[in-house]
């Protein structure tokens, strides 16, 4: 198997679209939902996997690439494209074909008023809410949820155990999260509507990255929006606030794909991956990339090989 590393993937970002630059750009111009350029045609013409701007999503993208590659499908991973708000229009426009997504977050992006929280119900609701041309495949075992965490000192000082406790300190606490979380239901909007929480300030930081974790450590923010698969939560002894009203839905990893690429080969390969990958695996892979500075592609390939998914 040819050795493609993180940077190989990075380069693909630059060259592949460069080759397809004209067609891709023009197709996007012609409107969303059209037969996009991405890899063009069916999965036989290759699948372009887009990933969001955080480590785990890039690992998932490379895991998708590993199992699809083993099934004989040519793939390109485009790392670090941005947020869901940027990625989904790009998927509709055909710049990319496949995205590693998260059930609940995706559902709330498509339908801010969605009430479903159970996995099966969410899967059905997603099928209804998705725009034409896109579909989700069966969700996997691994889950990465949003968490709202505070330091142990803050938890003791304000008596914080659950998200509901935050409302007793309205106008006093500062929340740090990625900029998009300000307008998301699973974020500032939902915290206000469900729990009546009003923060003193919303600080735009990053997705469970160096900014938000640094700010929580330093005390620049009181509450931080993190991912449950982030090993720093345990390592730093941060307290994840409980969610008695189920504001935060289940967040199983789920592939979001353009219809034209979702043939049986692709479905089968991604389903095998979904059944094999656990939350613990995902957490460990995150740690290897963030802490051991390994390439997302290398850890993805090693894990897939060890679990006989690329054989």
């Amino acid at each position, binding site marked *: 198997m040819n050795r493609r590393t993180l940077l190989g993937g990075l380069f693909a970002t630059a060259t592949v679209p460069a080759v397809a630059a004209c067609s891709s750009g023009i197709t996007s111009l012609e409107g969303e939902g059209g037969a996009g350029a991405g890899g063009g045609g069916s999965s036989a013409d290759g699948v372009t996997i887009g990933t969001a701007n955080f480590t785990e999503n890039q690992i998932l993208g490379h895991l998708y690439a590993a199992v699809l590659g083993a099934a004989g499908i040519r793939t390109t991973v485009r790392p*670090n494209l*941005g947020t869901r708000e940027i990625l989904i229009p790009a998927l509709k426009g055909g710049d*990319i074909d496949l995205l590693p997504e998260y059930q609940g977050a995706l559902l709330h992006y498509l339908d801010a008023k969605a009430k479903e929280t159970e996995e099966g119900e969410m899967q059905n609701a997603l099928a209804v809410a998705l725009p034409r041309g896109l579909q989700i495949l069966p969700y996997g075992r691994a889950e990465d949820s949003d968490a709202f965490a505070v330091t142990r000192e803050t938890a003791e000082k304000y008596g914080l155990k659950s998200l509901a406790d935050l409302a007793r300190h309205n106008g006093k606490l500062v929340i740090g999260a990625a900029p998009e979380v300000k307008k998301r239901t699973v974020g500032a909007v939902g915290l206000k509507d469900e729990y009546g929480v009003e923060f003193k300030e919303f600080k735009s930081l990053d997705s469970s990255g160096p900014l938000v974790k640094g700010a929580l450590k330093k005390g620049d923010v009181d509450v931080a929006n993190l991912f449950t698969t982030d090993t720093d939560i345990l390592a730093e002894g941060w307290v994840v606030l409980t969610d008695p009203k189920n504001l935060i839905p289940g967040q199983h990893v789920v592939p979001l794909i353009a219809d034209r690429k979702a043939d049986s080969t692709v479905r089968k390969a991604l389903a095998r991956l979904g059944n094999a990958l656990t939350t613990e695996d995902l957490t460990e892979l995150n740690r290897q990339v963030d802490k051991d500075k390994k390439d997302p592609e290398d850890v993805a390939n090693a894990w897939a090989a060890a679990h006989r998914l690329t054989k």
Partner: protein
Amino acid sequence: MTVEWAWISDHASDLATLTVSHLQAALTAVALGLLISLPLAVVAHRIRPLRGLLLGLSNVLFTIPSIAIFVLLLPVTGLTRTTTVVGLTVYTLVVLLRNTVEGLDAVPVKVREAARAMGTRPLRTLLTVELPLALPVIMAGVRIATVMSISLVSVATYIGDGGLGQLFTDGFQRNFPTPVITGVVLTLLLALVADALLVAVQYVLTPWTRKRGA
């Protein structure tokens, strides 16, 4: 902050491909910029009222943050290389347009008149007399535009492109200085080499300036 040399040697071929991609974006933008600015500059040079408008407009474009240009292009060109190249081209226009107009201005009126007196057509005068004489100033603009573009490519990392700029976001997200240092050094080297090559090109293209200088 230490540099992990092993990481660099492990990723040598990837760094090479990133560098090529980086350079490709910058050079395409400069080429497009030249293609657009040359006719515009001739118009600005010939038609006085348009001159202020065109130069003023390009100056205002220069004050808009590059990241904003890239984002605003997303609905039109999507998450593609085209977005990067078009965004960069906008910035090269500022430098190239101004320098080309100034270069044409510097051609003595007498030279044009002499050409006309000899019966040379205006277009021919422009191509064979004026533009060659303006070349040193135009080339100075090309050098500035090239170095600037090479530096600016990395901003496109915020829209998932950006050549060597990808090393910056990667290093940032993982608290990993080695890719960042590598990216900065490679960008500087790339700019330095490109600038030196352009000096050489100019030397070859404008033999008369050499004689005059000697």
